[in-house]
């Protein structure tokens, strides 16, 4: 096509084009962290050696227990599977339901007025308090665990989506409307991507609460073979090194849910939080 106008390379247009900068953390940033870790580990190791009991966990004990727990403990992986299956199913349900609820609350005042006290109230209720009632209804089994996870994870998701959809820039909605966007286009095409930073913040909270909920439920229900139960039994049998290795699996999954997913999204969607 005959180019109508000169290229934007002429003029000052291109000079303000930001290049995508890659921040590289130098090794110097890690020194503080490494030093702290080293000091803690040394004090811990020596402390237990001087004053502790034989069965107390030590850094060296934990490290040597890692291969043992990962490869020779027949109950670990089934427990991991059982526990995280509940967490992931619960989180998926919570994300879908919580996001839908929150987005609608943000766009439809009537719904917000109707549901706000419940969402806020459930959010404020300590999840551990409702566990006895849940077990009365559902029995001492994984259904109760699942229910507690959902109870813990839906409110932060809903509140985040609510905030997100309330703060969608009016301009986006106006643009959509001016091009004749239908309601569905606005919900899927604008409300969700425009709220995505809020949804991710909500997911961080929800995933942390979901992990807490699953462990609490397993501890208090006391049946099944989940990772929580496994940790409890290891500790009660004075296998503290092994218990810490199992706890670290929870930590890693928690970190992945809280931080890893955001990192992946940032890499995949460079616009994220740059608007």
């Amino acid at each position: 096509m005959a180019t109508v106008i000169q290229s934007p390379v002429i003029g000052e247009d291109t000079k303000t084009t930001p290049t995508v900068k890659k921040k590289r953390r130098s090794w110097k940033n890690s020194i503080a962290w490494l030093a702290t870790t080293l000091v803690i580990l040394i004090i811990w190791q020596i402390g237990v050696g001087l004053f502790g009991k034989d069965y107390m966990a030590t850094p060296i004990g934990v490290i040597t227990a890692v291969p043992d727990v990962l490869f020779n403990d027949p109950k670990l992986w089934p427990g991991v599977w059982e526990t995280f299956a509940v967490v992931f199913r619960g989180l998926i349900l919570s994300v879908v339901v919580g996001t839908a609820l929150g987005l609608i609350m943000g766009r439809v005042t009537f719904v917000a007025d109707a549901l706000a006290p419940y969402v806020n109230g459930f959010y404020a209720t300590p999840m551990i308090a409702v566990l006895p009632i849940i077990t009365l209804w559902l029995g001492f089994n994984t259904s109760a665990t699942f229910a507690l996870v959902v109870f813990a994870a839906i409110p932060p998701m809903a509140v985040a989506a609510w905030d997100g959809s309330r703060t969608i820039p009016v301009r986006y909605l106006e643009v959509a409307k001016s091009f004749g966007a239908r309601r569905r286009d606005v919900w899927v095409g604008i409300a969700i991507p425009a709220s995505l930073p809020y949804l991710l913040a909500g997911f961080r909270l929800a995933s942390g609460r979901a992990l807490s909920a699953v462990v609490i439920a397993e501890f208090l229900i006391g049946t099944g073979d989940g990772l929580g139960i496994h940790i409890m039994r290891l500790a009660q049998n004075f296998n503290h090194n092994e218990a810490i290795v199992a706890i670290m699996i929870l930590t890693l999954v928690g970190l992945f849910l809280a931080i890893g997913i955001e990192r992946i999204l940032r890499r995949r969607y460079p616009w994220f939080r740059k608007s």
Partner: protein
Amino acid sequence: MERSVSELENASHSTSRGIRVENLAKYYGDHCVFKDINFEIGPREIVSVVGPSGCGKTTLLRCLNGLIQPDEGQVIADGLQVSSPRPGIAIVFQDFGLFPWKTALDNVAYGLVVQGMKKDKARKIASNYVNMVALEGFEDRYPHQLSGGMQQRAGLARALAVEPSVLLMDEPFGALDAQTRELMQFELLQIWDKNPMSMLFVTHGIDEAVLMGDRVIVLGGKPSGIYREVDVPLPRPRDASTVASPEFQELRSQVWDHVMTVRRNTSSDEN
């Protein structure tokens, strides 16, 4: 590529009958934004609107698109009353209004997709308009990776892509620096010369209003209304030499005087 040019030219809006505004008035509570607004934009005509801040320029533009409902009067576009936004009327926004989660190309294709076109086809058409506004090579950039001028090129291409018979420009170059603004004015004129349509050009810039418009409407007063309508008989195509001509300077100072006069008796929160 040749094909797309003829396609664009064939879309010469032969059915377009321009847009007409009849007795338009808008109130916010007791406050009258404007009233008794009457004017018409022919199918191949540009009408500029200038006036002091708070005179209701932007509200008027939104009424023309149906984003806002007027309290009195009506807007007729292509023979039909405008009651809600519709495909034939597109807006270019001052702050570009691009979606940060879409690439430049997908932003340009947005109007087409929303109006029901398949994504692939919409992208193909959009890429013609990306070329038209000289954004080729930047299709896959996100808005935050583009300069202001380039973002507004995308905003313009998005509006042009739906082949509107009426294009509403809401201070489109107001957020750009002086150089870019000037560049974009001439580029817009060139695009319009190839493919003219009805255009409402709302601006703060008096030079810009005269350069773009076949007529300049000076809005203002208390309540706001059309204070003056100045004909701009400068020949087209217009370019940098137009600005240098004594006729341009004469018209410019005329409009300037009107704006200064009307400014003194317009409700405004800014001075």
